[in-house]
């Protein structure tokens, strides 16, 4: 009888300590969910986030939402059921992504947004965002000066459901709209996509062959705009402005083929998001809801620094 009791106690101890030692050996899992992996900028953001999470000792896996809120939703369902412990998210849609974040929140999983803001201040644990507005104020001032306060221009917007699109456009227009001799002849979405922006500008150029400037909501679209202008033989006449600080645009600024861009710091955002997740696991529960990351203007005057 005593032996039976002893075996039972031993079995219980083995089960308890066995389980707890297994739990201890399991690393928390961090999911990196990005809007798209079709754009090198987001690839860098995703890979930096995953790399930083791994450096901090966590398992990390990247999920691609393919710019589709429905796929993002599926990703969330999947990673909630798979037992992920934190999510570093680059949202697809400023409104549409809120419900996904709330689902994770209900499941007790903190979500740290990177780069793109969602329109809620009680869903994500924290949002680490580029200061798009200030960056585009600087670009707007550069634009006005370069065009000498007059001329016709085109604005190619990013995704219309994304807050970054409107923060950038808002910053730019807060400056440019104060100069009445600058006329915007077209404003269309290029979905942050190089080919789409090229097609959009090609069509706009047919009706407006005499434009003086193009402001693009990201650098991929600035490259698309450059291609469209080059095909039309207007790349030296029309001044192009982008936003991101992508390598190919930095090269074009060096070659004086693109005027300026706003340098974002995706690696800083990714690192901060991973660091916040680490602090969360270690007990910190209160984070600033929005953390703006400075954007620096890059133009011919300071290109040597980049």
């Amino acid at each position: 009888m005593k032996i039976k009791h002893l075996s039972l106690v031993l079995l219980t101890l083995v089960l308890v300590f066995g389980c707890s030692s297994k739990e201890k050996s399991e690393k928390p899992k961090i999911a990196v969910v990005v809007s798209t992996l079709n754009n090198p900028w987001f690839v860098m953001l995703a890979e930096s986030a995953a790399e930083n999470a791994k450096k901090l000792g966590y398992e990390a896996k990247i999920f691609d939402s393919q710019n589709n809120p429905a796929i993002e939703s599926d990703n969330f369902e999947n990673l909630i059921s798979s037992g992920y412990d934190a999510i570093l998210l680059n949202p697809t849609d400023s409104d549409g992504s809120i419900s996904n974040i709330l689902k994770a929140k209900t499941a007790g999983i903190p979500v740290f947004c990177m780069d793109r803001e969602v329109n809620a201040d009680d869903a994500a644990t924290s949002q680490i965002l580029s200061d798009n507005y200030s960056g585009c104020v600087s670009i707007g001032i550069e634009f006005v000066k370069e065009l000498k306060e007059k001329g016709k221009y085109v604005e190619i917007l990013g995704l219309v459901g994304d807050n970054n699109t409107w923060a950038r456009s808002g910053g730019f227009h807060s400056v440019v709209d104060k100069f009445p001799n600058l006329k915007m002849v077209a404003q269309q979405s290029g979905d942050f996509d190089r080919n789409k922006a090229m097609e959009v500008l090609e069509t706009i150029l047919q009706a407006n062959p005499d434009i003086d400037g193009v402001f693009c909501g990201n650098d991929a679209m600035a490259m698309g705009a450059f291609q469209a202008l080059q095909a039309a033989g207007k790349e030296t006449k029309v001044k192009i402005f982008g936003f991101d600080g992508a390598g190919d645009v930095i090269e074009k600024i060096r070659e004086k083929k693109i005027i300026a861009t706003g340098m974002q710091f995706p690696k800083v955002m990714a690192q901060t998001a991973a660091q916040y997740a680490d602090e969360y696991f270690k007990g910190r529960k209160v984070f600033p809801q929005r953390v703006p990351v400075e954007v620096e203007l890059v133009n011919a005057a300071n290109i040597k620094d980049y």
Partner: protein
Amino acid sequence: MKKKYVYILAFVIIAILGYNSVYFKKLSDVKNAKKENFDFKAYADSIYYKGILKSKKTIALTNLISSVKTNQEAAFKKYGNRLGIGNSAYFMIQSTGKIIDIKDGIYTIADEKNGVVYIDTKYIFGNALRDASGLVKLTDFKTNAQFNKVSESLNDIVRNEVIPKEIKKVQIGDSVSFSGAIKLSKKQTLFTDLLIIPSQIKLQ
């Protein structure tokens, strides 16, 4: 028996009237509606006239430069304001000098102690004044878009009310006192080309 039906009818009528005259809204919806109706102009007026003009954060430009040269980190922490992460911060400064050039809205000032500085009266844009003042917190507003509207209203006050009134009195050769916001970067080693977004320019 008839009375009973009258009472029931009266009760139904009162219930219908009551149901249609009282409604409940989510507190979050009410708060959102309040933010949407927020009077940014009045708020910016208060920030400018009661805050910026009387700001205790304003430091003499000479003292700021000296502090930054002595201990950049401490000077940025004590006098600067940076929302979030970045290399630069905004500062509220004041100084005096003589106007030596006016071109395209930029007033070139031979500052008595700091060499040449520039006052920009044309490109009053962005968050320099709002952030240098340190009076508005990011958490005061639900979204960045609302937060940035504060800057736009503040800039409108300076651009439309302050600059035109004060600037038309001054010309080349005049001595002026001035205050405003500057942006300094931690990468910065020289203090030439300092551009000031003015909050005030006055003939001395």
